[in-house]
C-alpha cells in the first residue's frame, strides 16, 4: 500500500484521538485556571495556613514531571485504595500540573501592577480589598494573559504524555498504529499535522487576544 492510502485509512482512528485530546485539554485547562486562580488569591491575600498549603502545592507541582505525577495517580494511589479511571487520572494530573503554572502566571500579573498604581489607589483612600478589586485584579489579569496563553499551549502539548497510562488520545493512537502496522513515517506525520492543526491556529488566536487585552487595559 502506498503512504497516502495508509494515512487515509488511519484518519478515522486519529479523529477519535484528536477529539479526545481536545476534550481532555479543554477540561484540564479550565480546571487549571480555576485551581491557579484560587491558589494565587490565597497567596495574594495571605490567607493563614491555606496560603502556605498553596505554596507547597505549587512547588511540588512545578518541580516534578507530569509523567511521574501520572504514575503516582495511576499506579500508586490504587495501592492505598484510591482508584481512578485512566481518563480521570489524566485530567487530575493535568490540573495538578497546570494549576501551579496558572497560579504563578496570575501571581506574576498581580505583582506586575506598578507601585504607582497601588499608591494612587491608596492615596484616594481605597481599602486593601478595594485596591485589589478595582486596581490590582483588573490590571493583573490583563498582565497575566501572556503567561496564561503560554500555559494553555504547554498543557495541550503535555497531554501527549497521557499515552503512558493508555488513554487513547493522539499520541497513543499513533503509537498503537505504529505497533500494529510498522508504518512509523506515515503515522508520525499524521500525528505532527494533527497537533499543528490544534496548536498553530490556537497560538495565533491567543496572540491576538493578548494584544486586545493589553490595549483594552493599558492602551499600548
Amino acid at each position: 500500500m502506498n503512504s497516502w492510502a495508509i494515512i487515509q485509512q488511519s484518519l478515522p482512528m486519529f479523529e477519535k484521538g484528536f477529539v479526545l485530546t481536545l476534550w481532555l485539554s479543554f477540561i484540564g485547562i479550565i480546571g487549571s485556571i480555576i485551581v491557579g486562580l484560587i491558589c494565587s488569591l490565597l497567596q495574594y491575600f495571605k490567607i493563614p495556613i491555606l496560603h502556605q498549603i498553596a505554596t507547597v502545592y505549587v512547588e511540588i507541582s512545578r518541580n516534578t514531571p507530569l509523567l511521574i505525577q501520572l504514575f503516582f495517580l495511576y499506579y500508586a494511589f490504587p495501592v492505598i485504595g484510591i482508584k481512578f479511571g485512566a481518563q480521570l487520572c489524566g485530567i487530575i494530573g493535568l490540573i495538578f500540573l497546570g494549576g501551579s503554572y496558572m497560579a504563578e502566571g496570575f501571581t506574576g500579573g498581580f505583582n506586575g501592577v506598578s507601585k504607582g498604581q497601588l499608591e494612587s489607589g491608596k492615596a484616594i483612600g481605597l481599602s486593601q480589598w478595594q485596591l485589589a478589586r478595582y486596581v490590582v485584579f483588573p490590571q493583573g489579569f490583563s498582565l497575566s494573559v501572556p503567561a496564561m496563553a503560554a500555559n494553555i499551549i504547554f498543557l495541550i502539548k503535555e497531554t501527549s504524555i497521557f499515552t503512558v497510562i493508555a488513554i487513547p488520545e493522539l499520541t497513543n493512537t499513533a503509537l498503537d498504529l505504529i505497533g500494529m502496522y510498522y508504518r512509523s513515517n506515515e503515522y508520525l506525520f499524521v500525528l505532527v499535522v494533527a497537533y499543528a492543526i490544534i496548536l498553530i491556529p490556537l497560538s495565533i488566536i491567543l496572540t491576538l487576544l493578548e494584544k486586545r487585552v493589553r490595549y483594552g487595559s493599558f492602551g499600548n
Partner: protein
Amino acid sequence: MADKILQVAHLEKYYQKRHVLYDINFSVDKGEVVTLLGPSGSGKSTLIRCLNGLEPYQNGTITFEEETVTPTEKNWQQIRQKIGMVFQSYDLFPNLTVIDNILLGPTKVQKQSKDAARAEAVKLLKRVGLEDYADSYPRMLSGGQKQRIAIVRALALHPDFMLFDEVTASLDPEMVRGVLNIIKDLANTDNMTMIVVTHEMNFAQEIADRVLFLENGKILEQTPSKQFFEKPQTDRAQEFLDSMDF
C-alpha cells in the same frame, strides 16, 4: 492663632540603615501654602509621602487636625480621604474611564450617591477644562490632561489638605502652565491648604506663603516665601537659588 491643620514633630525616617530624614519639625496652618524646596535627593518627596502614610517613619509624630496619627494602615486609610495627593507620574487607572477614575474614591470609599458624585465630578472637570473627556480612557489624553484629571480625582474627595509631589516634572513645558494655574487657582480661590514639592522656582515664588528648604534630609530653614526668595537665611539656600534659572 490660626488653626493648625498639620503638625510634624521630630520625624525620623530610615531606609534600612540609611538615615534619610532627620528630626523634621514643622506645622501648616489652615489655608497656608508651603513649598518644599531643595536639591534632588534632599528628601522632599520622601517627606511628603510620609505625610499620608505611603512611607513608614521610624520616629516622631504627625498630628493631623488636632489628632495624632497612630500609624497603622487602617488609620491611614481613613485619613487619606482628607488628604489629596497628586504624583509626578499621574497614575490614573488605565483600566477605567476618566469619570470612573474620579468616581472611584467618592462612591466606593466615601459611599456618596453615584448621581451626586457624578454631578460634582463633572463640575470639577469643567473647572479644569476637560468636561468633554469624561468617557475617554487615560490613554487618549496628553500628559498635561492626565495630570489635570489626577488633580480632579484627588479633589473629588473634598480633601482638607493637598499634597503635590513634583506634579509638573514629567510634563512637556507647554503643559506645565495649565497644571500650575489650576494649583494656583486652588490656593487663591478655594484657599486650599497645600504642601507643594516643586522645581519650578517661579511658581513656588508666586504661590508659596512659606518655604521649607531641605538638604540631606534636614530642614535647613523655614522662611516666609517673600523673604526666602529675596534673602534666604542660609548660604546653602542662597547657593541653591543662584543655581536655578529663573
